[in-house]
């Protein structure tokens, strides 16, 4: 322990460089996963902000919610067994502002519920991101699907669907625009259950029915996985290299009779110290970076995710240090001294 510290103090630059590399690699990994998570959250925050539960749509719709129409009898069946059921519909559309500028949005309407804001007929509640387009509360927005125009009443935080801003509207307006008396989807917080001619989805399964979501998630997960694997390998290689570089010193220590476990402990202590410090800085910075990232850049990094990654890095660093330790324990002292050139 004392020896590990003394060595690090003697070769401050070497260990500082190693620490910086570990920091940069883990920082990069954290930032990229923050951006990837942000992107996936941005795709469907409307759904991600809902509690875990079950979504139902017509089986005939073949997992395409906008082809689903829940009939009155089906609605009754669902309501009978799930008193809390919410019925909702989602449609991609657009709104035109007073200057004739068009804005792509997603209309969402639903029966009374605690997840979405209440809206009156003729009113809109929009995702706050649309404010960047210069839309303000009180603005009149029109659509060619309806004669009357909407008044923007308020904005909601993080309500997006398929990357576009959600516009909550009153069911009557929705029925009026899309000429349909029926809702597309039912949502309950209960466990999933078999209902005739209905398909059930949990949150994740439902997200995957959103066009673009599953393809996007696949790419993002791939990016994160590759990044993690490669940075993990770099981690292991760096700890391995720094120990092999010290072969001569380890040879001297072995020659005077220092135990292998003492040498291993030395490597572990150094590895843990460096990784700990680098990861603490990387995690803090990756949390603080939200303060400087522009609003429109979706970024989301849960501490839990960071902790899992940190644990992964620790294990990998440990393996790297241990592997080099095992290798060093096998060479004869004289061989180590000669090869190490110390």
């Amino acid at each position, binding site marked *: 322990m004392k020896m590990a510290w*003394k060595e690090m103090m003697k*070769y401050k630059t070497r260990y500082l460089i190693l620490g910086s590399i570990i920091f940069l690699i883990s920082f990069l990994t954290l930032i990229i996963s923050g951006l990837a998570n942000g992107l996936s959250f941005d795709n469907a925050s409307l759904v991600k902000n809902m509690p875990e539960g079950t979504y139902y749509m017509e089986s005939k719709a073949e997992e395409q919610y906008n082809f689903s129409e829940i009939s009155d009898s089906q609605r009754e069946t669902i309501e009978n067994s799930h008193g809390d059921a919410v019925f909702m519909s989602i449609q991609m559309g657009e709104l035109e502002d007073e200057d004739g500028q068009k804005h792509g949005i997603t209309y969402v309407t639903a029966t009374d519920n605690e997840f979405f804001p209440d809206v009156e007929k003729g009113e809109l509640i929009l995702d706050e991101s649309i404010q960047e387009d210069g839309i303000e509360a009180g603005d009149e927005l029109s659509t060619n699907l309806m004669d009357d125009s909407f008044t923007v009443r308020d904005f909601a935080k993080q309500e997006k669907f398929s990357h576009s801003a959600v516009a909550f509207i009153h069911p009557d307006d929705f029925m009026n625009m899309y000429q349909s008396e029926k809702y597309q989807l039912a949502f309950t917080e209960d466990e999933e259950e078999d209902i005739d001619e209905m398909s059930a989805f949990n949150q994740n399964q439902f997200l995957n029915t959103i066009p673009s979501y599953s393809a996007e998630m696949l790419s993002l997960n791939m990016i994160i996985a590759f990044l993690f694997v490669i940075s993990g390998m770099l981690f292991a290689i760096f700890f391995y290299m720094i120990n092999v570089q010290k072969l001569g*010193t380890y040879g001297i220590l*072995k*020659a*005077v*009779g220092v*135990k292998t476990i003492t040498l291993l402990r030395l490597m572990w202590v150094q590895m843990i110290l460096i990784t700990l410090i680098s990861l603490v800085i990387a995690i803090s910075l990756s949390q603080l970076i939200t303060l400087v990232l522009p609003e429109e850049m979706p970024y989301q990094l849960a501490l839990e995710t960071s902790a899992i990654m940190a644990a992964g890095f620790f294990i990998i660093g440990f393996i790297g240090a241990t592997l080099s330790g095992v290798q060093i324990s096998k060479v004869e*002292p004289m061989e180590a*001294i000669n090869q190490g050139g110390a």
Partner: protein
Amino acid sequence: MSLLQIEELEKSFKIGRNEEKILKSVDLELEEGRITALVGTSGSGKSTLLTIAAGLQQSSGGIIKFSDKDLTNMSSSQMRDVRAKEFGFVFQHAHLVPFLSVKDQLNLMIDTAELKWSKKEKQQRIQDILETVDMWKHRDSDPDQLSGGEKQRVAIARAIIHEPKLLFADEPTASLDSKRSVEVMELIRSLSIERNITVLMVTHDEDMLVYADRTVEMKDGKIEK
């Protein structure tokens, strides 16, 4: 009584594709408490013999018995234990631990030999030995702040602080001037006498042979009879 017995020791190195025999059936016995000087031309295999006898590398054949224990049959951790507790080694080049101060080199050796000395006793012994090799004033220096001769004196102190039974010294005086060489040899001899330490020492310096009880010569991988 002999403390170390070397019989038919062989060592080959792979050099490129060829196996080259560096030690060809070496026989050597060290009497307990005696100083044996090993001389011979450069490249005759003196350092190789010394490091194998001290368990720092494996032989290719033969037997090494240390007070009736066969070193060639030992596991590497048993060998390590013998090195830590019973052997002292002065390398041809000092080979100090680069990041430890002079004092800590000795502390490490005391800990490694698992000596149960009190803190005060440790301090006292370290001071004694460093004063003997005239390095006490450099006790807090790191090896890279010392001259070659100074390093060698620390290496000698490290090799004897734990009072080994057997001291191997590979040209301990090579990097010292003649006055220091005499001092170091007197130190080794007085330690050998006081503490009954057996010494095997390589030297090129004819003047140092007076400190040895016996001189053996190596020639071309063999001990000359």
